[in-house]
């Protein structure tokens, strides 16, 4: 077991990033155009990185699986983006955002990275406003804010319930400007299926053209992965259908360590599951908890209509247990409490799982119009999906997999354990520890892409001897053959079960054993069951059609193959971490239903190294030290 070097600069936390930027080597403008960078993924992190590096003069090649970069799943983020602007004069500051994020992450994130994130947040808003992102504004024309879970200040900027879409359009449009100027070459409907490592450095990728089936090799001086998270390992999640771990996982198999895979976030306010044929779950923005009150009946299996349940027979459990944060308790805490109520028999859906999110009081206080102005599109979406009018009846909600804090391990420069492979946004593990606060994902994606990677990649290029490579190099051929081999293998199985059925079964194993609550017995069983499922997959999956043309089933098969391996690692990581922290709740380690952290033994990042097929990954630890914020038990009471 080796020790991992975070490369976090020394010196006071307030000036680390500034000092680091000064100490970095620069690439002169004339030389930048001689260097090429591959960016995989065009969500917030990828598009912002591609645009910014294009502006700097690098030759950028951007890739996405979608038909258009604007369809990346960042588009679906609803609630908002945090920034320590303190426009509301309510006591916010960079230090407070830093503190909230470290505490929200249950002390399992790296201080230096989180401070930089808080520091950068301020510039992100400026950048987005300048791009024309139509943030909500007050009548005086200034930017509006709202509060979000895990914070006691209003620091969240938003564009109704479509903040992610608007920020993504800003980044996408900036990138398209660079495409127009010839600095970014865009290739859509391409899926990265392998990373090419030459002389120990990331030098290219193998992608499959999803329309023609053709495999392409692309070379560069550095590779940025901005390929999002892996919540779809649970099958049912709020993530889009094409969200996958594939790009990150293939990089993992080439030597990039995978950090904290068991740190996943279950979002408390999603529309409950309706049935067997459901393909995905829909999130209702956390911002709804600003005005909605979460409750269940005090009576078990209560069959009464919610409006018939008198006030004194209702349990507003978040307000009861966490009086100072109330309905705005952080996501992991709010989710777990909803699960407990349902486990105890207080579910509001007969035969299913759900709790109420009720706006009756807010409507009485502010009027239906005011509520419609704030949340109109969310209410409309709820109505469409469930066929119930949330202005008249309380919403029914239940937690669902939503975000993954874990991801490829990166150092302070956002470089993985493979030199030249950078990882940005949700795909890396860096800033959220064991639980992410609401409205912080957009912030991190854009911080990485606009303001971190464009600097650190320059330092890497300036300090590294990069010999020219071409796709005729043996490493490219080997990687392309590896990919072709897997495709041929999948096509030739010709079994009896659909890809989807395997994915659903894996999802159930993960949700039941590695979801909101985990224990040793469940995890051990899950590992066995996943291993059996993986064996069956490789002998009995049915991929119809042809590999040489558009084939969505083949695409899914490759992704599920990777999820099967990731699922196993997630369970092993969860088993290995004998403590509860943030979203990782081990039933054996709790005090009165709250997480019991073990700082003495587990105050580290678990980074797993791939050791080859059918061998167990080996664990490396990055010890976390807290010099600026005292390790303390997280309390929202």
């Amino acid at each position: 077991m080796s020790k991992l070097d975070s490369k976090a600069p020394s010196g006071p936390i307030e000036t680390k990033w500034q000092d680091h930027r000064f100490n970095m080597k620069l690439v002169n403008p004339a030389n930048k155009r001689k260097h090429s960078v591959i960016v995989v993924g065009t969500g917030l992190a990828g598009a912002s990185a591609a645009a910014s590096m294009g502006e700097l003069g690098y030759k950028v090649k951007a890739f996405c699986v979608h038909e258009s970069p604007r369809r990346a799943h960042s588009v679906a983020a609803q609630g908002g983006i945090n920034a320590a602007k303190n426009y509301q004069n309510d006591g916010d500051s960079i230090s407070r955002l830093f503190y909230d994020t470290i505490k929200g992450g249950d002390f399992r994130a790296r201080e230096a990275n989180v401070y930089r994130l808080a520091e950068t947040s301020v510039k992100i808003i400026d950048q987005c406003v300048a791009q024309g992102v139509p943030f909500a504004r007050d009548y005086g024309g200034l930017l509006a804010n709202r509060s979000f879970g895990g914070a006691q200040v209003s620091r969240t900027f938003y564009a109704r319930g479509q903040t992610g879409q608007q920020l993504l359009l800003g980044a996408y449009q900036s990138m398209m400007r660079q495409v127009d100027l010839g600095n970014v070459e865009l290739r859509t409907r391409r899926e990265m299926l392998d990373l090419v490592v030459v002389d120990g450095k990331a030098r290219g990728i193998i992608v499959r053209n999803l329309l023609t089936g053709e495999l392409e090799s692309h070379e560069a001086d550095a590779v940025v992965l901005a390929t999002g998270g892996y919540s779809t390992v649970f099958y049912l999640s709020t993530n889009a259908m094409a969200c996958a771990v594939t790009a990150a996982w293939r990089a993992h198999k080439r030597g990039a360590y995978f950090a904290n895979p068991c740190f996943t976030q279950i979002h408390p306010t999603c529309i409950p599951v309706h049935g067997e044929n459901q393909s995905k779950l829909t999130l209702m923005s956390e911002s709804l908890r600003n005005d909605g009150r979460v409750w269940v009946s005090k009576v078990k299996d209560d069959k009464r209509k919610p409006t018939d349940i008198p006030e004194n027979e209702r349990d507003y459990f978040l307000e009861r247990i966490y009086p100072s944060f109330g309905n705005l308790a952080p996501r992991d805490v709010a989710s777990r409490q909803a699960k407990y109520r349902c486990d105890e028999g207080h579910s509001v859906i007969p035969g299913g799982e759900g709790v109420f999110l009720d706006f009756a009081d807010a409507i009485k206080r502010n009027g239906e119009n005011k509520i419609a102005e704030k949340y109109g599109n969310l209410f409309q979406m709820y109505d469409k999906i469930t066929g119930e009018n949330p202005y008249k009846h309380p919403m029914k909600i239940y937690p669902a997999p939503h975000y993954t804090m874990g991801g490829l391990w990166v150092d302070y420069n956002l470089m993985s354990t493979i030199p030249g492979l950078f990882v940005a946004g949700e795909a890396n593990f860096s800033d959220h520890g064991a639980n992410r606060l609401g409205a912080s994902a957009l912030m991190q994606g854009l911080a990485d892409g606009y303001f971190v990677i464009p600097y650190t990649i320059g330092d890497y290029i300036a300090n590294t001897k990069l010999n020219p490579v071409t796709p005729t190099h043996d490493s490219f051929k080997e990687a392309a053959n590896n990919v072709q081999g897997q495709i041929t293998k999948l096509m030739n199985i010709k079994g009896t079960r659909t890809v989807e059925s395997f994915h659903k079964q894996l999802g159930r194993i993960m949700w039941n054993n590695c979801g909101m609550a985990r224990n040793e017995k469940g995890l051990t069983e899950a590992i066995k069951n996943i291993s059996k499922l993986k064996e069956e997959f490789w002998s009995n999956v049915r991929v119809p059609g042809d590999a040489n043309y558009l084939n969505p089933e083949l695409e899914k098969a490759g992704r599920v193959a990777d999820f099967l391996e990731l699922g196993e690692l997630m369970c092993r990581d969860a088993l290995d971490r004998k403590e509860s922290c943030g979203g990782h709740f081990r039933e054996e380690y709790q005090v009165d239903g709250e997480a019991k952290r073990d700082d003495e033994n587990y105050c580290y990042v678990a980074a797993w190294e791939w050791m080859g097929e059918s061998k167990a990954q080996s664990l490396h630890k990055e010890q976390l030290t807290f010099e600026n914020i005292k390790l303390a038990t997280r309390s929202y009471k």
Partner: protein
Amino acid sequence: MSEKLINLTLKVWRQKTKSAPGEFKTYEAKKVSTDSSFLEMLDQLNDELIQKGDDPIAFDHDCREGICGSCGFMINGQAHGPLKSTSVCQLHMRNFNDGEVLTVEPWRATAFPMIKDLMTDRTGLDRIVKAGGYISVNTGNAPDGNAVPVPKVDADEAFANAQCIACGACVASCKNGSASLFTSAKMVHLNSLPQGKVEAEKRALSMVGQMDAEGFGACTSTGACSAACPKDISLVSIAKMNRAFLKASLNKKPEVQGGEAG
């Protein structure tokens, strides 16, 4: 959420490749939950097709929350089906009756070449954005977010237009195959903000120019686009685009090349 099961007959356009001839094929969708979305109903049908060894129906989709703009096809001649302000992923089967016959076909427009079955190539819309659908500001160049106040009504108008998801329903619903609603939404979004006004005229000329170059048709103001739009983009945006284009055409000034300060 009171689930019922219904049976439907689907006539689906099947076309293997861009150049292969296409045809309608009839399928029975059985025991469809009324809580399922239209796409989940197609998933269920595809599952059966795969089990039988047939080729599943190809359609674009991703977020299934009505925001990524990937999905979209015609149901009985209506883009995204019968429900107003709704993309097909948010169209639930409770909007259909047991025994209904539905004709499902892809967007049909000159500027959207066929890919397979219900999938078409809408990258022409990206190329319109590439031709000026942005504000030229490099990373790091921005003043404080509150330095320029934006009247709330302008911010609201920008937002209303920025909601466009580029699904292509407007083009598919237009008898001329025009992308005017899409193009005008982007233009009005940016032009109504002080940050976007600087490039407004240049933007109008280049975006309209690209729209024509892609082979999208002209607008004859029938309003079919706006009626089909899942995000309710208003026809007024097209009028504003035409005005901006006219103004820009009359105002066109010669651009001085190499005018950067030494």
